[in-house]
């Protein structure tokens, strides 16, 4: 196994597996966030379960953090290796003639997503870590809020139009990243499914519906708060 990941293909496979894992997580995250639009009670219940369940908090969350960090680090490592493999830069290089813009700019879209994640962590994850692990409050309640606090906190975050704008721009880049990443991940693990019309269509739908849904949720809370 260790020998596999010492090869260029092994590293690509690892990158693709982390991508597939993150895409599954994204779908789950989107599903839960969608509940905030449909049913605040259901959103609160599921958020409290996810935020307090030991399996989620102490097993799945560390795996997720590892997956995110691994995906970004491996992305940078592979990019550095690729730049080293290049010779002198072409005077004229017509990349648009043979490859989609999104496939040629995965690092750029990835960097925007990394910036978004920093903002997202400051907005949601760090406060949660503070409340649960530093203050030791696992009740899921807050003063002045009836029932669980998660729904009210979510809506409060999207009052600021600049935050909504920043989230929306980041989700556009997420769509671009997924647009290439979805099928590319399958190709990297050795599957030709990525070349099949069915999976390309699924990838296209996934890459646009999920980010558009996230934008819709942010806009919904901004305009209905």
């Amino acid at each position: 196994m260790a020998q596999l990941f010492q090869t260029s293909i092994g590293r690509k496979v690892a990158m693709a597996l982390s991508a597939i894992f993150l895409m599954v997580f994204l779908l789950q995250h989107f599903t839960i966030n969608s509940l905030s639009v449909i049913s605040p009670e259901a959103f609160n219940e599921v958020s409290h379960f996810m935020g307090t369940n030991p399996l989620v908090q102490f097993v799945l969350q560390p795996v997720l953090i590892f997956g995110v960090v691994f995906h970004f680090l491996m992305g940078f490592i592979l990019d550095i290796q690729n730049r080293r493999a290049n010779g002198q830069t072409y005077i004229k290089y017509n990349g648009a003639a043979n490859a989609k813009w999104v496939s040629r700019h995965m690092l750029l879209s990835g960097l925007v997503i990394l910036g978004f994640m920093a903002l997202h962590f400051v907005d949601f994850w760090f406060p949660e870590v503070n409340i649960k692990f530093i203050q030791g409050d696992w009740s899921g309640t807050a003063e002045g809020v009836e029932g669980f606090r998660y729904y009210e906190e979510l809506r409060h975050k999207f009052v600021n139009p600049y935050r909504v704008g920043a989230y929306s721009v980041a989700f556009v880049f997420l769509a671009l990243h997924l647009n290439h990443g979805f099928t590319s991940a399958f190709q990297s693990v050795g599957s030709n499914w990525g070349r099949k019309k069915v999976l390309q269509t699924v990838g296209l739908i996934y890459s646009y519906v999920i980010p558009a849904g996230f934008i819709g949720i942010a806009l919904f809370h901004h305009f209905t708060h």
Partner: protein
Amino acid sequence: MRLTLKIWRQENAQAKGAMVTYPIDNISPDMSFLEMMDVLNKELIEKGESPVAFDHDCREGICGMCSMFINGEAHGPDRNVTTCQLHMRKFKDGDTIHIEPFRAKAFPVIRDLVIDRSAFDRIQHAGGFISVNTSGNTQDANAIPISKHAADTAMDAAACIGCGACVATCKNSSAMLFVGAKVSQFALLPQGKVEAADRVQHMVDQMDLEGFGNCTNTGACEVECPKGISLENIARMNRELLKAKLF
């Protein structure tokens, strides 16, 4: 046709190269690109200047020697052709044409447009073959049943002429289309299956050793490949390596 050529000139591997502009006239649209280069070189020799060095051999799209990066694309703007099969009718009168060598760290420039592609040879030597006992008791290959689909797919992969356009056009200078094709052409056939695990490991190891980049599945190599080698060969190589390393 009257054209302006901007060509990469480099004295030798150590020298610093630069683009040099050459106006050229009386070019027939029916000429091949290399014939146009011949006309230019004839003019340069008559003027006492050094001709532009470029690789060529069969001029029929078979040998894989010609290797120019024309107007930002490997083998120029046409599809499924090598530079020698590219015709001047693909350009317009008055055009400016940029001509550069294929570029990659693993393909150093030797002179002008000539590059060293021996890295591909070393990858082939690492495993791009089958071992057959030729003592006289060799089984007739035609006696081994092979499905039409496998035979056709292997033949499609074997169409790779090793020109290096895939590496030249890849933003990562990845050689995975070339290696994928060479791995596939054997892995699909009974004669090649025997050594399939060793072959893919040795060829991928050598590919990494030569300093080629990683594939990011942009698909540019497939588009620019003069033989239309499919990206499916890269997926097959990945599968073969996973099988060899894990099982």
